[in-house]
């Protein structure tokens, strides 16, 4: 991952129980659009709830909804500290 400004890092790098604010989605455009339609728009608060028993996927909550997504996507979502 490239260096991030002002404490930004990827969703994947957060610790369990930590919250952040979505800064940007650097995924393939249709995937980015889909994730945003599911509520992961920039400026939204996300919380990393847990990692699956085998380390992947990740459970997050966003806009009151619990979702799981794979690390491959999570690593392309940048968050800034809440």
């Amino acid at each position: 991952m490239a260096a991030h400004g002002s404490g930004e890092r990827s969703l994947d790098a957060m610790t369990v129980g930590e919250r952040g604010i979505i800064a940007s989605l650097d995924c393939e455009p249709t995937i980015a659009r889909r994730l945003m339609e599911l509520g992961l728009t920039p400026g939204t608060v996300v919380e990393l709830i847990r990692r699956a028993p085998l380390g992947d996927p990740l459970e997050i909550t966003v806009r009151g909804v619990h979702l799981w997504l794979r690390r491959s996507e999570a690593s392309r979502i940048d968050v800034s500290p809440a």
Partner: protein
Amino acid sequence: MSRPPEAPPRRIAILGNPNAGKSTLFNALTGLRQKVGNYPGVTVEKKTGMIDLPSGRRAEVVDLPGSYSLQPASPDEMIVRDVLLGLQSDTPPPDLIVFVVDATNLDRHMYLALQVVELGRPMLLVLNMMDAAAALSMRIDTVALERQLGVPVVGISAAKGEGLDALRAMMDRDVEPSTRHFREWPAHLMRVIDRLERRLPERADLPQRARRDVAVAMLLDRGEDDALARHVPADALQDARMLAHRLDEFSPNWRSGDVTGRYDAISALVAESVSAPPGERRDTRSEAIDRVLTHRVWGPIIFVVLMGAVFQSVFAWAQPLMDLIDWAVSAVGSMLGQAMPPGALRSLLVDGVIAGVGTTLTFVPQIAILFLFLSLLEDSGYMARAAFIMDRVMAKVGLSGRSFIPLLSSFACAIPGIMATRSIDNRRDRITTIMIAPFMSCSARLPVYALIIGAFVPNRWVGFLTLPGITLFAMYFIGIVAAVAVAWALKRTVLRGGPPLYVMELPPYRRPSLRSVLTTVRERSLLFTRNAGTVILLITVVLWFLASYPKGSEAVRAIEAQRVAALQAGDTAQARALELRVAGTNLEQSFAGRAGRFIEPAIAPLGFDWRIGIGLITSLAAREVMVATMATVFNIGSADEDVHPLRQSLRDAVDTRTGLKAYTPLTGLSLMVFYVLACQCMSTLAVVRRETNSWRWPIFMLVMMNSLAWLASFAVYQGGRALGYGG
């Protein structure tokens, strides 16, 4: 209640996010007056039901698949978009959209609702789960919502049946469509959309009011939108792709501007109309359950125990029911047999039709019991957790966690397993899962394995295991390895596609409603008997014919004469033996028997002779029929009560040309490997045909599996001989 009989029913579509409670509402409104079918050409299920509105007018209600967006990401969502835009020729756009949202989660559920409001069609917004909202002390100002959205709003609780009368009354009224829009396209994007809209041909299948939405869809499409390709000329799509490309360079975020616009509108909407107690709304109960059920250690353990219990129940509970059905079917058969004079018609009815009905019905207990558990797991919310736990494992073969349970179910029987793949939203993953499901050794293979292991594998201890046990395990293992290999190959060739997005909602845990669980069980069982059942019946009758005709050859008549002579001499034992020989010789000389000989050159390299060939052919009805066929071929009557004489016959069988033993342990191994991999179950093919809505996939399955089986058995037999294990 007097109404003009010719009044066409009002068309109403129920729509909403997954888990909004659409099915619960649909069931509550229609009761059991439902019809389940498929949308033509796709694998998406179409559920419709009739209701009587308060005025006496009738309405046809369609339960559309749950969706997140009108920009489709799955076949289900594509259907929803097509129905709403009027692109779906068999389902005209509804007169009224009943949009269902989870009132406790407007933040997310309103996204699709706003998209649908923007379509400018008559619509009602139904706030479902008002009971749950009340429990959270939320208050929702429906008047404010109506004002902001421009559509009527009603609060209900579908599960408790509250508010349904008010809803029915509203469904009866004519509704003015809303004119609201919640996002503005920037001017440069507007120009592009206008330009694409003008490129669209004037065609009946492109309704005027859908043209703008079609233009937007064209711009956002990345070549995966099959429906667009049907309605829009290829050069216009090409144009759209080029324009999208240019936009990408010019304003990178153009694709999602409308998404943020709508979510901003939702925040404002919710702030004005929802008052919730201060502090964060969290479902603490679900979170507490999840701390156990998806725990790093307990999660997988509970998962394994739960799956074991489900699997065991399907096995254990289905068996007595299947035996009961078997018993009832053969009772009907023998009653009919006694009532009718012997002859072709009796044989057709008893051995063809009734046996075919029996085969179909014996699948029903497994289907019913499996779907009982699956819908309990699904409706309680556990299914999404199971996929969460297993995703990593399934990702290794290019699938996702959702494929796990259908594959596990296939160890009992591939038919309910394949039917369970409906919960997989990614089309390519679903087809891959269907294609590999029959490699899981199902319970119908067990009698065949047992026969062959019993005949050829010595009961020796190897460490703390027995050789038969190891062999049986190896057969299951070979199936799994083949499944992994085929999944891997399919995902890299015919089922390759763009980067998939695996994301799944973890809904709050809810107590499943018995009614909806039972509806699912009933629906699945009926669907199977009605659709696959007819095919299975037909095939059984054809196989019956092949195994019974032509009758009464010279050889048979000669044995028959001996039998009569023995009977007259009072030698009943001899007469019985000769009777079995009549049956054996009849089978041998039937079309199936001749086919067995005909295919012998093809299966000889696998170590099989024509007698096994007959077994392979009759196995097409169901794998376990192999055992009965071999018993007939070897003139030992039924193998039901005692399989030992048949095992002995297999060991002693002699190759008439060489005078040597016909079968060796190596033949047995080769035959078992063949049964692991070969597609011999016509019922499976009938279900694949129904679930994929095409003949392409069942034919592919048949060819692929049988080629694989032949090659593997060839490798086993010829390899074994080369290593000196042939004798």
